[in-house]
C-alpha cells in the first residue's frame, strides 16, 4: 500500500509541474488573446479593456496563483472563445477521443501480443521475417498518410466503411449520457447506434494504432525472445511440457511486463496524436479542440487540455503498475 501511496503523491507532483510548465509556456508563446477577443478594428482602448477583464494585465505569478486556486476547487476556468466552462467543453470533447484511443489500443494489443509471442517463438524463420517487415512498414507509415489512404480507398472507392464522422447522418441529433457512443448505444439498448459508431471507429482507430502496433510488436518480440532463452524454458522442454503450455503459461506472463509498461505509455501518446486522425475523419475530440485553442491563444483551455491528457497518461501508467504488481507476486516482497 505504501508503494501506491508514494506513486499517488508522485503523480500529483508531476501534474503540478506539468500545469506550471504549460502555463508558463503558453505565456511565452507569442499572441495576445485580448486582440483576438476584441475582433477586427477594435481599437487599442477596447483591447486594453478586454485585457483587464480577462485578467491578462496582472503579473504572471498572480495569474498562476489565481488559476491554481480555482483549479483546487475543480474549476478549470471559462474559455475566452466558447464562453463556456472549459470543463464542460472537455466533457464533450474527451469521450470521442478516448473512445478512439481505447479501440486503437485494443487493435494494438490484439495484434502485437500474439504476433510478438509467435514471432519470438519462431525467431529467424520466414514467419518472423514477415512479421518484422510488417512492423517496419507500420513504423514507417505516417499516421495522417495511412488515414488518408484508408479513407479514400476503403471509405471512398470501395464504400465498405464510412468516410467521416462519428455516426451516420440519420443519427445526427443522437444524444447519449456519457458521450461514449459505443457505451451509450449499449446503455440505451440501441444496438443500431452501437454498431454504427463501431463502423465509424474502425478506420480511424486502425490508422491511429498502426505506428503504435509496430512498436508494441517489436518490444513484445524482443522481450519474449529473451524469455525463451531462459533456463526454465529449457527445463520445461526437457520435461516434455507441451509447446503451447510453455508459450502461454510460462513465457507469456514472464515476458509481458516490459511490453505492458510500453502499452501504458502508448495510451497517453495516442491521446496526444488523435488530432491527426480526428482532422481527417472529421471527428470531434480533444485534439481538434486543443489545436483550435492554441490558434486562438485560449490559454486556459490549452492548459486544461494538457492537464487532462497528463491525467490520462498517469492513470494509464498507474493501471499498468497495478497490473504488473498483480501479475508478479514477488513484486510485493521486492517493494
Amino acid at each position, binding site marked *: 500500500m505504501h508503494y501506491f501511496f508514494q506513486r499517488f503523491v508522485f503523480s500529483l507532483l508531476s501534474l503540478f509541474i506539468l500545469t506550471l510548465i504549460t502555463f508558463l509556456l503558453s505565456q511565452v508563446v507569442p499572441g495576445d488573446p485580448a486582440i483576438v477577443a476584441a475582433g477586427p478594428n477594435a481599437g487599442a482602448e477596447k483591447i486594453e479593456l478586454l485585457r483587464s477583464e480577462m485578467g491578462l494585465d496582472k503579473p504572471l505569478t498572480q495569474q498562476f496563483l489565481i488559476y491554481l486556486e480555482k483549479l483546487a476547487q*475543480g474549476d478549470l476556468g471559462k474559455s475566452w472563445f466558447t*464562453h463556456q*466552462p472549459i470543463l464542460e467543453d472537455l466533457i464533450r470533447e474527451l469521450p470521442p477521443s478516448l473512445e478512439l484511443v481505447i479501440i486503437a489500443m485494443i487493435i494494438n494489443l490484439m495484434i502485437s501480443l500474439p504476433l510478438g509471442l509467435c514471432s519470438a517463438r519462431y525467431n529467424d524463420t520466414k514467419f518472423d521475417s514477415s512479421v518484422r517487415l510488417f512492423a517496419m512498414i507500420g513504423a514507417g507509415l505516417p499516421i495522417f498518410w495511412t488515414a488518408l489512404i484508408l479513407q479514400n480507398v476503403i471509405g471512398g472507392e470501395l464504400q465498405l466503411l464510412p468516410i467521416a464522422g462519428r455516426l451516420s447522418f440519420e443519427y445526427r441529433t443522437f444524444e447519449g*449520457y456519457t458521450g461514449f457512443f459505443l457505451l451509450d448505444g449499449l446503455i440505451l439498448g440501441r444496438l443500431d447506434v452501437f454498431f454504427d459508431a463501431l463502423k465509424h471507429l474502425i478506420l480511424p482507430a486502425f490508422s491511429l494504432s498502426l505506428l503504435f502496433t509496430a512498436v508494441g510488436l517489436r518490444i513484445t518480440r524482443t522481450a519474449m525472445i529473451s524469455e525463451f532463452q531462459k533456463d526454465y524454458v529449457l527445463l520445461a522442454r526437457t520435461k516434455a511440457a507441451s509447446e503451447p503450455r510453455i508459450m502461454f503459461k510460462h513465457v507469456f506472463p514472464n515476458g509481458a511486463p516490459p511490453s505492458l509498461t510500453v502499452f501504458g505509455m502508448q495510451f497517453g501518446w495516442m491521446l496526444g496524436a488523435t488530432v491527426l486522425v480526428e482532422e481527417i475523419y472529421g*471527428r470531434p475530440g480533444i485534439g*481538434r479542440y486543443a489545436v483550435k485553442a492554441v490558434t486562438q491563444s485560449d490559454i486556459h483551455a490549452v492548459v486544461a487540455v494538457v492537464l487532462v491528457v497528463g491525467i490520462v497518461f498517469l492513470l494509464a501508467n498507474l493501471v499498468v503498475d497495478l497490473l504488473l504488481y498483480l501479475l508478479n507476486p514477488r513484486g510485493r516482497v521486492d517493494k
Partner: protein
Amino acid sequence: MKIFNLLASAFTALSVSLAIPFTATADVAGTLIIAENETPENLDPANATNSTVNQLLVGVYDALVQFKAGETSVSPQLATDWQVSDDGLQYTFNIRNDVKFHDGSSMTSADVVFTLDRLQAASAAVLNDMGPFKSAEAIDDYTVKMTLEAPFGPFISALSRIYIVSKAQVEPHMSDDNGRGWLAVNAAGSGPYSVTTYKPTEVVTLNAFEGYWGGWDGDHVAEVVFRYIAEPSTQLALLKSGEVHIAPDITVQDKLSLMNADGFRVDIGAAATPLYFQFNTSSDGLVGDASFRKMLAQTFDRKLHLDYVLQGFGTMPDGPLPPDWMGHSTGTELPFNMAAAKELVDQNGWAGSTLKVRYLPAIEEEQAAVEQLQSNLSQLGIKLEAEGMTWPAQAATVQDLATTSDINMIYNFPSFPDPHAILNTSFNSQNTGYNGGYNWAQYSNSEVDALLNQAASSADQNERATLYAKAQQMIGAEYPVITVSLPGSVVAMSSAVKGYRYSVAHHQTFNYMDISVD
C-alpha cells in the same frame, strides 16, 4: 464535490436539446448539408464578425436591414423604413409589428434597444464597425431612435450585422457576463431557421421555423446541417459520395476538376477581400523610405499569382478596392516591373539588404505569395526572411511599432460592401496596428485621414466616390501596400443545390435560407 456538480450539470446541458422541435412545413422539404473546415467558437451575435459564427447566424437572426445574397445594396428586414435627421446624428426606424421570435414572443422596439445595450455592455466585436454609434431608445412599441456621436454615411449598411435578440429570452440569462455564456450555446432570434442541435466540433443543425414572419413562399429546405470537416480531401470525398451538398474548402485543383464533372457545380463569387503585402511605413529602416517602397511595389507579379496560385479564380487587382466598386480609382498601384525595380536598387545601392515578412503559413495563398516575393527580391540581391505565425501572434507584433516587421501579409474582410470598410480599415491612421486596427502598414497621412473621415460622414454617394478616388491616389503615391489579389469566393457544390448565391456582405457564409435541394 464541485467537480461532480459541474459534471452533473454538464450532462444535463448536453442532453437538453436547444430549441423548439421542428414541425414540418407543407412546401418546405429536404435537407441541405454544408461542410465547413473551421469549427464555430460560439453562437453569440456579439461575435458575428467571425465568419464561422456568422454563417450559422445569418438565417437564424434578423437585422433591421439586410444585404440579400448577391446584392450590394441594403434592403429593409425588421425595419420597414427610416428617417435620418438633417445633421446625420439621429436615425429613426419604424419596425415591423408582425415579427415572432422562435420562443413565440413578439418583437417590439424594446428588443432592438435591449440588443444594442447588451452589445455595448459586452464590448462586442460586432460593434467595431458601427462607427460613432452612441445609443438606442424606444420611442414607442414599433419606433426606435438611434443616436450617433458624429455623422456616419455607412451606418445603415453597418446595421446588417447587428442581429436582434429576443429580450424575453435573453434577459433572464444575463448573469454577470451580459448573457455571453448563454447566447454562446443558445439562440434567440426571429430568422427563418432555429438552431436545433449545437455540437460545435461536430455538427450543427438548423430547422425551418414555421412561424417565420417572412413566410415560406418559394423553394426552401426544412433542415440545414453544418458538418465540421477540417480536411479538404475529406470534404471532397463526402461531396462525391453525396454526404454533403456544399464543400467550400476543397483544394483549388479539385475545384478545377469539378468544374467539368457531371453532377457538380463550382460557383465563383466576386469577393471583395483584398490580400495585401503591407509595408511598415513608419519604420526607421529601409521600408520607411517611400522610394524604397516604390521599388518594392514593382516586385510582385499579380497576374502570375492569379493564374497559377488562384488558378484564375479571382479578379486582377487594381488597387485595394474591387474595380467595380463605387469610388474605385484605377492605376493607383504600380504594375510588376522588375527592370524598373532593378534600376532603383542599383541607383541606391540597396542590394545586400535584408527584410522580414510575417504571414500565416496555414493559408496556402499567403505562403505562395511570400515565396514569389522572396524569389523576385533575391534576384535584386535583397534577402527576404519569412516568418510564419498564428493569427494572434502576428496581430500581437503590430501592436507596437518596434515589433512590427518590414512587411506583413493580411487580408481585409470588409463587413459590408462599402469603400469605407476597406479604405478606412487599411489606411486611416486611427486604425494603425499600434492603435488596435488593421492598418498594419502603420500608415499615417493626415490629408488621407481627412478625406476618409469626410467620406465616412457624408451621405452623398457622388461626393463620397470623389473623396475615395482622391484618397486612393494619395495613398498610391506613397506605396504603403501591394494588393496581391482579390480572390474569388469559390464554392464547390452538388448540382442538386439550387439558389446558392455568394453574399459579398457576409463573406464565407451561405444563403441557406434561399437554397433548395433537388
